[in-house]
């Protein structure tokens, strides 16, 4: 299998997370102080790079069959989680992620917090806000980089996909000096969910001892099938949601939803 699907999947997944991290970094930098914000961002990027640097080569040493079974299972579970949320959002059962309102919330909180210097950092609030935002959003990217890179035995290509996404999103943020609210985030998340579920299913089944018809070419069928099924579920739920809305007040999706903040 060539590296293009790997680079593209990591690029899109990383771009989505980078857009969310950018919103937090901009809120901290524009309302507080850029120096501490950049320090927080740099510290988080160092931690993320260390995780990839330590875990990536270690995971690559594992036998491929065991690796595919475990990583396939994790990717399939993770991908189904992304797909589930993207479908609920597309159908109207869950609010779309709104970068503009997320930005306003972060700005209001940043303005209200006092400026405290700590451990050589002149604005501790800006530092921790930026650090936590980049680290938490980046962990999902690290997970995808390591799982895809290790399975394909090509960690370098996965890192390149992630790095290009960070550069593209950062350049966009610098250009507009505002959150990238016009990017179709849910559509991107939908696409990533489809890729994660497809690759997870493919590798997981291979790790369990299955031989796919056509070997790697099976992915060329599996990805479109997962896409069509997911779009079908979304269309079906959208119709049901419209019918419910027309009939009367709609019961919301359970309170527990959204905990993992995809």
């Amino acid at each position, binding site marked *: 299998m060539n590296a293009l699907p790997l680079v593209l999947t990591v690029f899109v997944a990383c771009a989505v997370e980078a857009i969310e991290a950018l919103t937090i970094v901009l809120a901290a930098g524009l309302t507080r102080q850029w120096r501490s914000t950049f320090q927080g961002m740099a510290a988080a990027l160092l931690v993320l790079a260390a995780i990839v640097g330590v875990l990536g080569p270690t995971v690559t040493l594992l036998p491929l069959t065991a690796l595919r*079974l475990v990583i*396939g*299972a*994790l990717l*399939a*579970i*993770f991908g*189904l*989680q992304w*797909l*589930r*949320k993207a*479908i*609920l959002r597309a*159908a109207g*059962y869950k609010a779309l992620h709104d970068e503009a309102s997320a930005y306003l919330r972060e700005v209001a909180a940043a303005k209200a917090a006092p400026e405290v210097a700590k451990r050589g950092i002149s604005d501790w609030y800006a530092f921790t806000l930026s650090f936590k935002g980049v680290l938490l959003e980046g*962990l*999902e990217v690290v*997970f995808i980089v390591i799982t895809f890179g290790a399975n394909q035995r090509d960690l370098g290509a996965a890192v390149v996909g992630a790095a290009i996404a960070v550069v593209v999103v950062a350049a966009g943020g610098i250009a507009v000096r505002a959150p990238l609210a016009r990017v179709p985030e849910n559509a991107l998340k939908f696409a990533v969910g489809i890729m994660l*579920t497809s690759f997870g*299913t493919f590798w*997981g*089944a291979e*790790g*369990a*001892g*299955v*031989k*796919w*018809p056509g070997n790697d070419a*099976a992915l060329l069928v*599996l990805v479109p*099938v*997962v896409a069509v*099924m*997911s779009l079908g*579920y979304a269309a*079906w*739920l959208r119709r*049901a*949601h419209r019918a*419910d809305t027309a009939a009367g007040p709609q*019961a919301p*999706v*359970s309170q*527990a*939803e*959204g*905990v*993992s903040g*995809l």
Partner: protein
Amino acid sequence: MMRALKSFGSFWYDFVIGDDWQVAALVVVALGLTALLAHVAGVNAWWLLPIAAFAALAWSLRRATGGKS
């Protein structure tokens, strides 16, 4: 210490398993069945995991929307 461990575990649970643990459980059960079929019964059950994934997603969506689908 216990609180830190608890929040660490809760973070990873939310991160990997997410809102619906039953989806994760179904995927794991389907992988186990696939391995059993492949190694014990000699059946190349490549179709089992995709079907289980679609079923798990549909079931989870149905429960999340209060059985409207």
